[in-house]
């Protein structure tokens, strides 16, 4: 070797070759490796034995397309590497660990003095990293270019340095007319301050995310956008500019606004339905409806006038006014609309538009009556008729507008549905008033009738009692007793009816007195002892307990509970009464071992006219427990039942020792 390569193996050139950062090696004319440097070993991934490998330092070699190259294939360019040989052909080397490197091959023949090539000097340039970088760049620019969003690069002083197709689409500028211009070109003057702040953030290395703002297009149109601005750094991590991604959110905003507006409308309509279904006070309903309607229809002022039929068929007009332009003054009688006038307006039976109120002085005057002076004059009006179920015109909603736009945009469908709901509500309110009036009359009648019945009852009872005093045979006495028993039933029924009418009229007055409840129980038990042939009442835990309550009413409750206990326990002969006390209340329990109650029955048993199933043969109106509940609750107490089917029931009530609705003890004369 020394003889062949005196220049290389000796001296400085060899040093340079071996220390070179570029991979290089020399093969003889047969491809055997003669020498290679460290850079080549690094590239190959191993240090091959010299004299062994053919042409390359690795076993597997591919062309740039990935096809395996044989030793023959690969040697050709190296051997003939002069002139026309493809200098810098790209091949792929596979290292022993399987990883691949893209390299450029630069062969250079070493020629003997005789002109014969004796070896080849090959330089390999590793282009793997460059290749990946280029590919990435290509992908990135394709992404940027194809993006629907505007992607704009700018320097820290706000000069635009890149501009994609998305930017062109949104802002209207061609790339060549905007590059080099200031980013302020795109910003409305009143938002300059904002850009200053954004640039400040970027300089501080912070990102601005999804910031909603406005930009101006080439044509001067303002566009709502969502902005994300990020700092751009150079390879030494210094911030050199900013990338800006802007998305046109006009559509999105428009949709959002529409959704919001519709949600708002829906909310208002819901409020209307709610008040209509829950309330029966016509004036309240109409006021709520007109407030919501003006809001939904963007009217400045809304007037609803309607007629209600009061007692004796009188038609009374009421007016409700709402809206932001309403001056909240008292609604005066002279501003009411004449019924004939409305009939004239709604000849077509549908909504009527007054495009210019100057042509309709009556309506114009009506709006002026309620308008706040400071606001714009009402110029347009949409009039919506309210028809009752029987197709009578019962009122109208007049929506007044100052602005033409609002007036044009009003959704008439909604106003129509509101009007029909109002009609229903008014009808309900009228029926409710009617029912109330009838109910009042009914209660008055029951009260009067009951009293009238009592007078002859007094006489009959009196005379029968007188007869009772005389000697008579057994049969006569039995008949007389029967008559008196039936008379007591009539009396009890009349009293129940009277009590109910009093409760409904809110006139059940309690007559408070102080008494010993032990005495009361003893008295009642004794009465039952005489009157009940089937059951005996066992009183338990009787003790001296003084309460302040309506003695007669409490007695009535106890008698009622005991009568029920007897009535509904036909197969046993005993009913238990227990007295219990706590710090504040006294409790009386009536326990029977009778038929008991289902949970469903337990829930309903204290309601009016409730009769336990299968008990229709039992006498009574089903008012006893309802009355008892009212009486106990009026005392500030509680009544309840614990029961199981076929096991029996325990009815109980608790009342405070001395308590009234207002928490005070009622004295005799107040």
């Amino acid at each position, binding site marked *: 070797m020394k003889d062949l390569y005196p220049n290389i193996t000796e001296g400085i050139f060899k040093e340079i070759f071996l220390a070179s950062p570029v991979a290089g090696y020399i093969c003889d004319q047969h491809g055997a490796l003669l020498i290679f440097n460290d850079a080549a070993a690094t590239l190959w991934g191993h240090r091959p034995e010299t004299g062994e490998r053919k042409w390359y330092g690795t076993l597997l070699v591919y062309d740039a397309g990935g096809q395996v190259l044989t030793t023959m294939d690969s040697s050709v360019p190296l051997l003939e590497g002069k002139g026309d040989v493809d200098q810098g052909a790209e091949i792929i080397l596979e290292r022993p660990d399987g990883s691949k490197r893209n390299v450029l091959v630069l062969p250079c023949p070493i020629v003997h003095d005789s002109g014969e090539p004796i070896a080849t000097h090959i330089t390999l340039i590793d282009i793997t990293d460059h290749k990946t970088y280029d590919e990435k760049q290509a992908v990135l620019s394709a992404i940027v270019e194809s993006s629907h969003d505007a992607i704009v690069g700018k320097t820290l002083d706000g000069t635009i340095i890149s501009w994609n197709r998305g930017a062109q689409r949104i802002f209207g500028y061609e790339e060549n007319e905007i590059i080099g211009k200031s980013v302020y070109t795109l910003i409305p003057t009143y938002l300059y301050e904002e850009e200053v702040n954004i640039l400040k953030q970027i300089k501080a290395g912070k990102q601005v995310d999804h910031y909603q703002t406005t930009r101006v297009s080439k044509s001067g149109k303002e566009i709502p956008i969502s902005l994300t601005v990020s700092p751009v750094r150079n390879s030494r991590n210094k911030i050199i500019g900013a990338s800006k991604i802007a998305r046109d959110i006009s559509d999105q905003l428009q949709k959002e606004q529409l959704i919001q507006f519709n949600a708002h409308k829906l909310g208002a309509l819901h409020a209307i339905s709610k008040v209509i279904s829950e309330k029966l006070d016509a004036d309240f309903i109409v006021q709520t409806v007109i407030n919501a309607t003006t809001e939904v229809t963007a009217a400045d002022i809304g007037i609803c006038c309607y007629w209600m039929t009061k007692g004796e068929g009188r038609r009374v007009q009421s007016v409700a006014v709402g809206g932001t332009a309403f001056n909240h003054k008292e609604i005066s009688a002279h501003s009411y609309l004449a019924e004939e006038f409305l009939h004239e307006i709604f000849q077509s039976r549908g909504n009527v538009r007054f495009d210019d109120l100057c042509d309709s002085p009556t309506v114009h005057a009506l709006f002026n009556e309620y308008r706040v002076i400071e606001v714009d004059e009402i110029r347009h009006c949409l009039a919506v008729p309210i028809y009752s179920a029987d197709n009578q015109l019962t009122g109208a909603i007049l929506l007044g507008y100052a602005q033409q736009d609002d007036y044009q945009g009003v959704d008439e469908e909604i106003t129509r549905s509101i009007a029909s709901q109002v009609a229903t509500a008014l009808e309900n309110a009228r029926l409710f008033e009617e029912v109330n009036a009838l109910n009042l009359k009914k209660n008055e009648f029951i009260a009067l009738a009951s*009293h009238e019945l009592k*007078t002859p009852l*007094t006489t009959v*009872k*009196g005379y029968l009692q*007188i007869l009772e005093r005389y000697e008579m045979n057994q049969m006569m006495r039995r008949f007389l007793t029967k008559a008196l028993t039936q008379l007591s039933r009539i*009396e009890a029924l009349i009293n129940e009816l009277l009590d109910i009418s009093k409760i409904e009229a809110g006139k059940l007055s309690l007559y408070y007195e102080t008494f010993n409840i032990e005495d009361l129980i003893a008295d009642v038990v004794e009465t039952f002892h005489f009157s009940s042939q089937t059951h005996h009442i066992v009183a338990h835990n009787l003790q001296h307990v003084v309460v302040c309550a309506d003695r007669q009413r409490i007695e009535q409750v106890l008698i009622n509970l005991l009568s029920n206990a007897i009535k509904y326990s036909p197969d046993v002969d005993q009913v238990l009464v227990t007295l219990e006390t706590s710090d504040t209340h006294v409790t009386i329990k009536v326990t029977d071992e009778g038929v008991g109650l289902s949970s469903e029955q337990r829930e309903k048993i204290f309601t009016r006219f409730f009769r336990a199933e299968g008990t229709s043969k039992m006498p009574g109106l089903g008012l006893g427990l309802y009355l008892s509940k009212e009486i106990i609750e009026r005392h500030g107490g509680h009544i309840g039942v614990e029961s199981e089917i076929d096991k029996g029931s325990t009815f109980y009530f608790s009342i405070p020792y001395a308590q009234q609705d207002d928490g005070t003890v009622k004295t*005799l004369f107040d």
Partner: protein
Amino acid sequence: MRKIIHLIEDDRAISELIAFLLMEEGYDVKVFANPRMYEQRTHYILPNLLIIDVKLACNDGLTMCQKWKLNSSTRHIPMLVTSAYEGNRTDVRVAEADYFLSKPFDINELLARVSSLLS
């Protein structure tokens, strides 16, 4: 000396019943249809007991009670009020009547009460 009872009651059947009962017991009973007629009576012997019926929408009876209770010559005379209207119970207290008997009453209770008011 027979005790004198004045009865003011507009229902004929009831006044007859009460009068019969009380006379059976040996009382001297005079019946008047209403307070107005009672006040227009010609003989002014005061009774030992006044039984008066009170109507719903008519306060004449109660007004008379109050007047009697304010007058020193009549204040001592016991007054028994009867009524078919339970609600009058409270008013009767206000009018300072001595006893309230709701209709339909038990004749035994009526007699017991009359007797105790007269003793």
